[in-house]
């Protein structure tokens, strides 16, 4: 299913189908790790709305389980040289 109508889209994939017709698909961005994923409605992949970060997470179990915002990750790498996962 090709989606290009998501108001929360963070990016777009532009490719073509087997007939050579241009296809665009929206991507959303994880508020925890910053990854993008192609929006496929009904895919069954879990996504969680984080009320602290006010946004969706990707399907990575670590992002689903804990709130560790992207900018906090960047700060931790700058200060400690590695990620400091919350308990």
């Amino acid at each position, binding site marked *: 299913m090709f989606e290009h109508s998501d108001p929360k*889209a*963070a*990016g*777009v*994939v*532009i*490719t*073509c189908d087997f007939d050579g017709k241009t296809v665009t698909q929206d*991507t959303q*961005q994880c508020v925890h*790790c*910053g*990854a*993008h*994923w*192609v929006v496929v409605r009904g895919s069954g992949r879990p996504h969680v709305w984080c009320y602290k970060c006010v946004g969706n997470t990707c399907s*990575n179990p670590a992002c689903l389980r804990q709130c560790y915002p*992207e900018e906090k*990750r*960047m700060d931790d*790498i*700058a200060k400690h*040289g590695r990620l400091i996962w919350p308990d």
Partner: protein
Amino acid sequence: MSLYTARVNFTPTTVPDGAIHIIGSATARAALCGFNISSDATPVEQTGEYQVARTSTTGTGAATPTPVKASNFSPAAVCTLAVGTFSVDPTLGDLLFDTSVHQKNTFRWVAYPGREYHSAPAANAGLLIHCISQSAPHSLNVSAEWLE
């Protein structure tokens, strides 16, 4: 912020193999806002898997070209590049994007403003576009645009 571009044409030898590695620093973070994957090989039925990931070491690429400014009025890029076949792979961090692309297809991803991939603010940290697997080795044309 200024826009910079890089491109490479190469054939992955031992996968996973890097294509474009944008290396930032503690003071200059790369913000990847778009990339393009295509192939100039004779069209046949084969495919490959490609990823974008954060990195924490530079690795050793086949070449280290100078980033190309999108505007003549931009300053020279602070981020550096390593492209082509990597003899030493960078250390991977967060996986940011994963896709499969048929060799006959052209794949382009563009971030909306403010939703780019950012490298970590640390020395030798960067963003890598690399090939995870190919059903049969075929040449790739990969280009990337980033802000810094």
